[in-house]
């Protein structure tokens, strides 16, 4: 495979989806087999990609470029750097796990897998696009499958089915229900999600079109634009053009992240979505926002990013605290996890806002780590819902007797989500906190409060679901016993724990993507340069590595981290 790894990862799900069209719904095992097979190809290729990525060389690798439209200056240009690689891996793993999590879907199985595969493939496409057009193309393409997945296989919130008014008319069909925030139908959630994301996506598209026009290069290629686009200091409407573009791009993509106050679609959407969709949605779809901001705003408008990124630093505090408190008081398992996700995405914004080598590396690692943690939580919330047909925490309890395996995994998932040592989330959180401390001490304190909140609401939910007295009507609930049911959880746990003990490759890969970016934005040698020089001297004295060969590489603004090379041995 080698050079074509990206094409395998991207097109395996598409090919699977097309193949599924020709299979009858009656052959359920064949349908699942095709879906799982194509997801497996995608996951294996993304594993290969991750481990074959040469972090010493850095930059964009596995590049594929095909002319797509001469007149519009669009090329189908794929490539991954250190930031895209782990996210592609996370998408591959979550897609594969999601196929197994939805193993028991009976209604229109084939259609479900088709849309799930398209959703995942579109997401993966964003992470590897090096052309603004295709970045947007895949971004927008990932939104529509969400509508169908939520609408067709989703579930209403608990109160929605009971909403009637005194005259016996269904209140839910009237205007009244729009104002009733607690109870939503799945159609409402799906429509809200699509319209919300599309509305902000067109803002981002406006930004992209402005970049295209003012760069004047007749190309959408990110690599060309970041080198040659001259967008600074063009006065427009009392401000400068680059600021307008940056705001459009930032808020356009931050809506999917979701940054407070643009988050309201997200918990509603999570609650309505089937388990596998929630996993992909919270696991990777949200990261499209951060990733696209990094890829477009950070790469093409570095100066403006330095100037305006404090906006994110302010808003992320609200994200963290607000999400945390709502999650604490929410009674629906998926609302808890959904708000917890949007709270945790605030950490990523904090890591990005600090514009520091360590913090941004931490932010990208956190995206990867959070994908695993939240994927597990949603998978298990989905399992509990399938068994009990409710997501109402107060009415549940004591399920650990019925499902020991699930409750055991749930503890691990909570640990991961909180960031307890033993999971890769811990490393990432510490890096964000350490890296941001110099610049944003207040935000760091808020983030630490957020961790305490996470602990509180996850333990509260865990106690509510699995411990205490059990209602007898749930006595038929059973555990995940078959291999197909246990496999996705075991994969995600392995990844989450494994990268705690062997984080260096992940760190090095991410760092190789972050280094040139931060160097370009901040125009300073790494914050820890002093320390690094001394370390470099020590290392040279030990003469156990060959730093000059690394430093001689073109484009490497900063030397690779000293501990990086230690793991190479």
């Amino acid at each position: 495979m080698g050079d074509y790894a990206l094409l395998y990862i991207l097109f395996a799900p598409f090919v699977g989806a097309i193949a599924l069209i020709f299979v009858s719904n009656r052959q359920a095992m064949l349908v699942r087999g095709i879906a799982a097979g194509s997801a497996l190809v995608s996951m294996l290729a993304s594993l290969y990609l991750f481990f074959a990525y040469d972090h010493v060389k850095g930059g964009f690798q596995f590049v594929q470029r095909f002319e797509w439209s001469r007149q519009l200056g669009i090329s189908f240009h794929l490539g991954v750097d250190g930031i895209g690689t782990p996210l592609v891996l996370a998408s591959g793993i979550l897609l594969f796990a999601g196929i197994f999590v939805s193993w028991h879907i009976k209604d229109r199985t084939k259609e479900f897998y088709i849309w799930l595969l398209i959703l995942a493939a579109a997401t993966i496409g964003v992470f590897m696009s090096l052309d603004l057009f295709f970045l947007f193309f895949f971004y927008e393409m990932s939104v529509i499958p969400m509508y169908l997945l939520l609408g067709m296989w989703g579930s209403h919130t608990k109160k929605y089915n009971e909403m009637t008014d005194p005259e016996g008319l269904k209140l839910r069909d009237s205007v009244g229900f729009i104002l009733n925030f607690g109870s939503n139908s799945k159609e409402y959630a799906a429509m809200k999600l699509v319209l919300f994301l599309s509305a902000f996506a067109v803002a981002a598209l406006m930004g992209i079109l402005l970049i295209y026009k003012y760069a004047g290069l007749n190309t959408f290629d990110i690599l060309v634009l970041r080198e040659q686009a001259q967008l600074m200091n063009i006065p427009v409407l009392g401000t400068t053009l680059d600021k307008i573009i940056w705001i459009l791009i930032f808020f356009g993509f931050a809506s999917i992240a979701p940054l407070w106050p643009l988050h309201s679609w997200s918990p509603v959407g999570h609650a309505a979505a089937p388990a596998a969709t929630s996993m992909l949605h919270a696991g990777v779809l949200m990261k499209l926002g951060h990733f696209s901001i990094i890829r477009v705003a950070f790469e093409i408008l570095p100066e403006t990013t330095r100037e305006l990124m404090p906006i994110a630093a302010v808003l992320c505090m609200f994200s963290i605290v607000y999400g945390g408190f709502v999650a604490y008081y929410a009674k629906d398992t998926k609302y808890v996890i959904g708000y917890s996700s949007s709270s945790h995405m605030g950490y990523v914004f904090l890591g990005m806002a600090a514009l520091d080598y360590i913090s941004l590396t931490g932010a990208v690692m956190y995206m990867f780590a959070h994908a695993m943690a939240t994927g597990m939580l949603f998978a298990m919330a989905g399992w509990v819902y399938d068994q009990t047909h409710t997501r109402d925490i107060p009415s549940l309890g004591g399920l650990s007797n019925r499902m020991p395996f699930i409750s055991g995994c749930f503890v691990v998932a909570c640990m991961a989500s909180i960031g307890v040592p033993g999971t890769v989330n811990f490393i990432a959180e510490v890096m964000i906190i350490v890296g941001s401390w110099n610049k944003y001490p207040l935000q760091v304190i808020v983030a630490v409060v957020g961790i305490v909140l996470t602990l509180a609401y996850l333990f509260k939910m865990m106690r509510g679901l699995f411990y205490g007295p059990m209602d007898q009507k749930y006595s038929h609930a059973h555990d995940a016993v078959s291999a197909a049911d246990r496999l996705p959880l075991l994969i995600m746990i392995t990844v989450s724990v494994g990268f705690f003990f062997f984080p260096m490759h992940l760190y090095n890969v991410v760092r190789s993507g972050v280094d040139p970016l931060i160097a370009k934005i901040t125009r300073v040698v790494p914050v820890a340069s002093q320390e690094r020089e001394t370390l470099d001297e020590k290392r040279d004295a030990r003469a156990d590595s060959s730093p000059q060969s690394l430093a001689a590489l073109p484009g490497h603004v900063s030397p690779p981290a000293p501990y990086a090379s230690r793991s190479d041995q």
Partner: protein
Amino acid sequence: MTFVLPMSFPDLLLLLPEILLTSWLCLILIVDFSFPRLRNEQLAYFSIAGLVATLGCLAWLDYTGVTGTLFANMFALDRMALFFKMFIVGSTILVILSSIDYIHRFKFFRGEYYFLVVMSALGMMFMASANDLLTVFVALEFSTLGLYVLVAYLREDIGSNEAGIKFFILGIFAASLLAYGISLVYGETGKLVFSDMTSLQATPGLAIGFLLIFAALGFKIGAVPFHSWIPDTYHGSPTPVTAFLSIAPKGAAFAILLRMFLVSLATFRPIWTLLLVAVSILSMTYGNIVAIAQKNMKRLLAYSGIAQIGNVLIGLATGTKMGSDAMLFYLLTYLFANLGAFAIVIAVSEAIGSDEIDDYSGLGRRSPFLAFSMLIFLLSLAGVPPLAGFIGKLYIFIAAIKEGLYLLIAVGLINVVISMYYYLIVVKKMYVSEPRERSPLRVSGPIKVVVYICLAGTLAIGVYPQPVTDWVVSAILVFSNVADPTASLPVAPPVIPFGG
């Protein structure tokens, strides 16, 4: 006064498609009269054979690059005319294919139906070549004549009769506006041929004249504020006629608009850009907002059509070659998505006898094929990747941003989101709502063919638009005077990947 028509055989070559289709038109009538036992399908396939032959002839002309003018510049055959003729003939073929099943609803004159459709198409082909205001008038009325009859073809149906009356009255009104406009322009300039009018002096009479002509063509394309006939006519007409109305005359009218604005009025571009921007914003916004409230599928598509025309007008408002390329591209994507959607409306109404959106409930369970195709067509109309409509919209927006029409693009983008809402309402009905009955729907062969062709077009253009882009770019080369030299050049600077 003697009127000399210098014609030789090579000149006749330029008219070959029209001559072919005219003779075939007569043949259709003769066959229909001579063989009263001939079944409908056979006559339909007979008409389609003639249209396919015409299409082949047009493609051959396009391939060999034959161009020229006839009758003292009144009739121009350039690559743009060829594009629009292929567009018209292609859509007519699809419309006839999708009416084969519908035709049993007509009590009388089933054979003449095909004759009238092909006759209108022939008139539109002349419109695409009209290089002269008189030809515009004659060809436009010629094509509309057939449509007047077709709209009222369901004789027992009040809705169809009402549609016919409305269409007729407003059509005649538009025709009178056109005639008055032409007379004013001729009075001011003494010229009728578009390409002779390149150096006009701005006078009030000329301005009013061209405004009236624009209004008349605005009726044809159904842009706000000339749209009032559209919803009722679309709703009442037989559905295949609605499909025909929604695409072919619009293409023909755009050919005339392009010639008029980009050749005759090229010097007044700053002025008419304002006019077109206003009409475009009104069309998009009005069409999309009113479409939200629709309960009937045909009306929904009517209003969405008004909005789509607003999008096409963005391309015209740019006044550049790239904008015109984008228009042609967009019209092509609209052809596939729109005709596909109407084909499904026909199939559904044949099966369940209703066009109401509520009756589409559970279509995803009753006929996965129809529901999936409808989903693709609606999403293409909404502009969702990887479908043709997305590329079309983006092409138009890129052309517009190069001219700095920011307001227009902003309104256009907001309208994309609004339109997504009502298209998704239909999707919700089809996929989320449960069906009232569960019996599967039967889809006839010809409709399936139409749907497959439209699906293939929608997906292929969306995934790989380069061949179509090349085609439209070469079709618009006729306007070399407005050509933006950078627009068509392959400018892709060398890629410098990070780290060498």
